[in-house]
């Protein structure tokens, strides 16, 4: 298997504060990596560095074979990003939102037409194609965002808390969409979440971050086993690792 995301002593400081501290992880192509951690653990900073939004203070990160600091524009061609906040433009229709990014990713006219239609269909938004995205429910908006982020068929898709604030039904439709991406396109997924069940059901491996470090890493089963108690839940594991004093 190919390594598609690899970091080596990746560090980001904000003044005196070290948000991500000497982080070294690797993710294989096709994996779904879940990133857990309390607020402030460094998850978003890590994602921002991997998506080229924030330059590392020191250390290296390679995404899809390119260096995030030195080859940022190459990295950007191969990744998709669904940010934590809603990133669809409410003053444009669903189709327009898709069209804009199909163009920014330099898809040909034929690809554009086909993929925008496709995207609307599999997001269940065909009927609302010409409605302003500002009128969409949370789940519809999220599905549109995922559709936009995958128009160019990225090799890695980063999702920052993709289901936060969604009702259970909407969450299910988002999960479905994420599973399809993984199974049909083989997209590597890198997602952060606060929902343990989400991490457990979607992710092949989970990294728990605490105070800028990865404090635990493994399959959900491995993490629970490492805890010793066969009845342990992911919640137990998470609370255990996230309540340690920072080293």
């Amino acid at each position, binding site marked *: 298997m190919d390594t598609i995301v690899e970091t080596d002593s990746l560090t980001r400081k904000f003044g005196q504060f070290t948000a991500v501290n000497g982080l070294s992880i690797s993710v294989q192509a096709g994996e779904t990596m879940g990133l857990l951690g309390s607020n402030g653990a460094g998850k978003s900073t890590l994602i921002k560095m991997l998506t*080229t*939004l924030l330059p590392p203070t020191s250390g290296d990160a390679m995404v899809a074979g390119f260096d995030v600091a030195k080859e940022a524009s190459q990295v*950007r061609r191969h990744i998709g990003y669904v940010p*934590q906040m809603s*990133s*669809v*433009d409410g003053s*444009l229709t669903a189709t327009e939102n898709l069209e804009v990014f199909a*163009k920014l*990713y330099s898809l040909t006219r034929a690809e554009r037409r086909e993929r925008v239609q496709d995207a609307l269909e599999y997001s269940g938004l065909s009927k609302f194609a010409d409605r302003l995205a500002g009128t969409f429910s949370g789940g519809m908006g999220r599905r549109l965002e995922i559709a936009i982020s995958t128009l160019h068929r990225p090799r890695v898709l980063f999702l920052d808390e993709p289901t936060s604030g969604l009702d259970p039904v909407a969450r299910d439709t988002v999960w479905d969409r994420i599973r399809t991406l993984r199974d049909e396109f083989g997209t590597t997924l890198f997602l952060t979440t606060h929902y343990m069940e989400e991490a457990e059901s979607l992710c092949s491996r989970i990294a728990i971050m605490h105070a800028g470090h990865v404090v635990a890493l493994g399959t959900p089963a491995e993490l629970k086993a490492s805890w010793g108690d066969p009845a342990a839940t992911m919640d137990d594991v998470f609370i255990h690792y996230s309540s340690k004093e920072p080293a």
Partner: protein
Amino acid sequence: MKRTGEFFSATFTIVELEFRKLRHDPTELVSRAVQPMLWLLVFGNVFSKLHGIPTGGVPYLDFMAPGILSQSVLFMSIFYGISSIRERDTGIIVRFLVSPAPRTALVFGKALAAGMRALSQTAFVYVVVVLMGVHLSSNPLAHLGVILLALLGAAFFSLFSLLVASITKTQERFMGIGQLMTMPLFFASSALYPIKMMPGWLQVVSHINPLSYQVDAMRALMLENGTSTFGLGTDFAVLILASGAMVAIAGRIYSQIVT
């Protein structure tokens, strides 16, 4: 070549996006047209009765018409950055910054989109000015020049605004600084009175204010007996260089808006 193609394709995608937004909701264009109308109808009418301002022989209303056009473009452009702060707060901007579109293309697109709004302002002001009987140049090419100047002014000030937005990052701080900048830029220019009427220190300020060059060239081109103080060559050179520099600077700083 491919890179150049991608650059312009990204630029025009941004312009198209802004155009579509305005088509969905053109309220802003209409409401923006009110202010220059008031300046011309109220301020212009009153001040043209004063005869205290040495306009070089042209009626005061004629003298101030290009000034008000410049001002309306300035006011619209100087707050343009607020839309980027909104896009930052909602997360929209992140999506653009992780796309392979060059950042300079993104900001250049924004500059042209501001220009597009400036064109609608220009059209409104021309209608009012014609109705008020301002003596316009009979040369259509001169008016094309005015349009170009409106585009350049919009590009410079909207990118300046984008730069301020990228640094201030919040609406509150941005609005404070925006308000702070608007009036000095306007009054330290030749929009309402000739530069030579100003006290010495203000003359210095007005010489580094791109708005002065915009007004100067507009006055020369728009009016029947318009003349330029700095020379049209200087005016255009200053505006083109300043706008070009702004594209380069804003392209570099723009991504900091998300940090």
